[in-house]
């Protein structure tokens, strides 16, 4: 294996044999010996022929839907599962973080758990002694270390576990969605730890659903779907490919109209048309079923990871309510939003309420659209920005002379 490769995975497959009737008693094993024909097993192909290499110092993302096999792959990389076929070769010390705080025992104090979890990470007591104060300080738990872990809040537990995890001296780290837990403050700590890993040129294999994190940290990424590698490439490409998996689903929902939707039905959105250009145009055909005094209409745009990029209704932009609607009226509404959206997939939510705060129609996945850009950034939107400056000074400048 070349020196610059940290992990080489060649032809790895993993099958789980699931007996339909699990034999876990000796009687079962004996009776099954006699009626072998009845014993049916189902082989689940969790991974099929996975090949990839991760270079030393690379931040490598693995993305995929739930059940795609990415966690199984991570466990195989960590040596927890054995591959059915193929092999994995690693160079350097590998530390997996399938979960934070492995081995934590709620009956022990925070202090005792530091030593226990430290041992799981491979630290001797002496080594933990030396870094104990730093660990506690980083976790901001100085006053709680002699309390039992069961009396900690979940946030405190995660902080302690994370503080320990950041201490591990690995060449290769396997990280499984630890970012999914914790509050904003904790996530910020996670991100700065990631930045440090990147700066230290550690090899990191990162399994996640968070495409923003993939775009921001990963040098390369791999998309796993249906137990196979679907695509490997730059973080940007993979993040987009991943979003496409959901895109199809989201627009399917919208077409069938089976997205989340509720309301009293006094007015109903019958058709949603989304056009993408210099502006995002959202046209709504609304049928009025029962008289409505004043109709307030809203539009929300959500990014692929369900972050509300923008939300507005007619009152917020000083547009008039629609008044005195009669049953049988047909109303059309045309929204126009300047297309400042970054490369990605978005869903549209439309809302109809009246001035008495009754919800008439609240349509979560009413439509979707896709924005393709080459001038991508890591932020959610790209508003038109211009900048200029003026400068005043006493001494003469070169450019003044020319």
């Amino acid at each position, binding site marked *: 294996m070349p020196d610059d490769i940290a992990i080489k995975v060649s032809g790895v497959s993993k099958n*789980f044999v699931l007996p339909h009737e699990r034999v*876990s*008693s*000796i*009687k079962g*094993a004996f009776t099954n010996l006699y009626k072998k024909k009845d014993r049916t097993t189902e082989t689940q192909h969790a991974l099929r022929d996975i090949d990839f290499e991760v270079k030393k110092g690379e931040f490598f993302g693995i993305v995929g839907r739930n059940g795609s096999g990415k966690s199984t792959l991570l*466990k195989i990389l*960590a*040596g*927890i*599962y*054995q591959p059915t076929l193929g092999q994995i070769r690693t160079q350097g010390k590998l530390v*997996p973080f*399938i*979960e934070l705080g*492995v*081995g934590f*025992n709620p*009956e*022990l104090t925070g202090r*005792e758990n530091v*030593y*226990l979890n*430290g*041992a*799981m990470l*491979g*630290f*001797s*007591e002496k080594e933990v002694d030396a870094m104990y104060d730093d660990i506690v300080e980083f976790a901001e738990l100085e006053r709680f270390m002699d309390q039992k872990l069961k009396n900690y809040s979940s946030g405190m537990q995660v902080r302690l576990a994370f503080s320990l995890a950041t201490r591990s001296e690995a060449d290769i780290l396997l990280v499984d969605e630890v970012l999914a837990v914790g509050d904003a403050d904790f996530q910020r700590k996670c991100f700065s730890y990631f930045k440090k890993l990147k700066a230290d040129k550690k090899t990191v294999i990162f399994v996640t659903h968070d495409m923003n994190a993939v775009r921001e940290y990963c040098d390369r990424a791999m998309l796993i779907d249906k137990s196979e590698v679907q695509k490997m490439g730059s973080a940007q490409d993979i993040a987009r490919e991943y979003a496409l998996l959901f895109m199809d689903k989201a627009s399917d929902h919208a077409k069938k109209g089976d997205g989340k939707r509720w309301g009293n039905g006094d007015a109903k959105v019958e058709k949603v048309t989304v056009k993408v250009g210099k502006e995002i145009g959202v046209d709504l055909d609304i049928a009025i079923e029962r008289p409505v005094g004043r109709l307030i209409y809203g539009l929300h745009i959500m990014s692929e990871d369900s972050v509300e990029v923008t939300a507005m209704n007619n009152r917020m932009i000083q547009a008039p309510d629609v008044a005195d609607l009669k049953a049988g009226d047909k109303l059309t509404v045309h929204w126009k939003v300047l297309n400042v959206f970054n490369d990605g997939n978005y869903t549209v939510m439309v809302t109809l309420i009246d001035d008495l705060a009754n919800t008439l129609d609240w349509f979560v996945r009413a439509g979707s659209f896709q924005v393709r850009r080459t001038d991508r950034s890591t932020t959610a939107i790209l508003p038109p920005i211009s900048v200029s400056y003026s400068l005043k000074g006493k001494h003469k400048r070169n450019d003044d002379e020319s």
Partner: protein
Amino acid sequence: MSTNVKRIMQRYRYSVILLRQLVKTDFKLRYQGSFLGYLWSLLRPLFMFVILYLVFTVFLPTSKDIPHKAVYLFLGIVLWNYFGEVTTGSVGAILGKGDLLRKINFPKYVVILAVTASAVINLLLNSIIVAIFMIFNHVSISWNAFLIIPLLGELLVLAIGLSFFLSALFVRFRDVSYIWDVLMQAGFYATPILYSLTQIATVHHKVAQALILNPMAQIIQDARYVLVTPTNATIHTLYVGKAWVWSVPVGLTVLIAVVGSLYFRSRSKSFAEEA
């Protein structure tokens, strides 16, 4: 070459660190919340001895043939309890650590060693009580007493070997724990712990000869021979002139240890999936 040596050292180091913490945790948790705490480790065997003494020397002074009856019984029970603690504790040990197995990759044998180490600590504490009462009972101690060390070694190997086998088997077949409970019950009576093998030998010599082939019987009787009563029936007194018979229980012990460890090793890779 040197990197290979380093790697082996590294792996070994991790096992030791892990073992230490697992044993410590177990010890901390065992007496947590109890008023007397660790003291119970000494008080339990002490009370057991007092009960044995009251029952078998004060109220039921049977079989006068055994000198230092209470110490004699106590030693047998301590050794049997150690064996029971290791094996029964180990049966479910791997499955009990399922949570850990699914999250990190560590040498699985450490789990069994941790159970063993906890039991060894208990055995040592019990030995203190044994020693105290040997002195109180004026048991005469000879140089033979040092032979207890290889005997304890044999017991250790036997218990670990069985534990490896049972714990690995239990991951597949959950009946194992119940079967082992029954076997332990039967074993308790098949082993001359509460009754005198010497007496059995006078009535049914063949039965006594058969019983002593069980490694536990051989270990307990030999231990009593070297520590308490040199008149005790052992494998040597039951098979006079056939010193080779001694190799049967010892051979069984080695066989169990080898088969148990190999089975454990071959199965340990799939523990994470099955546990």
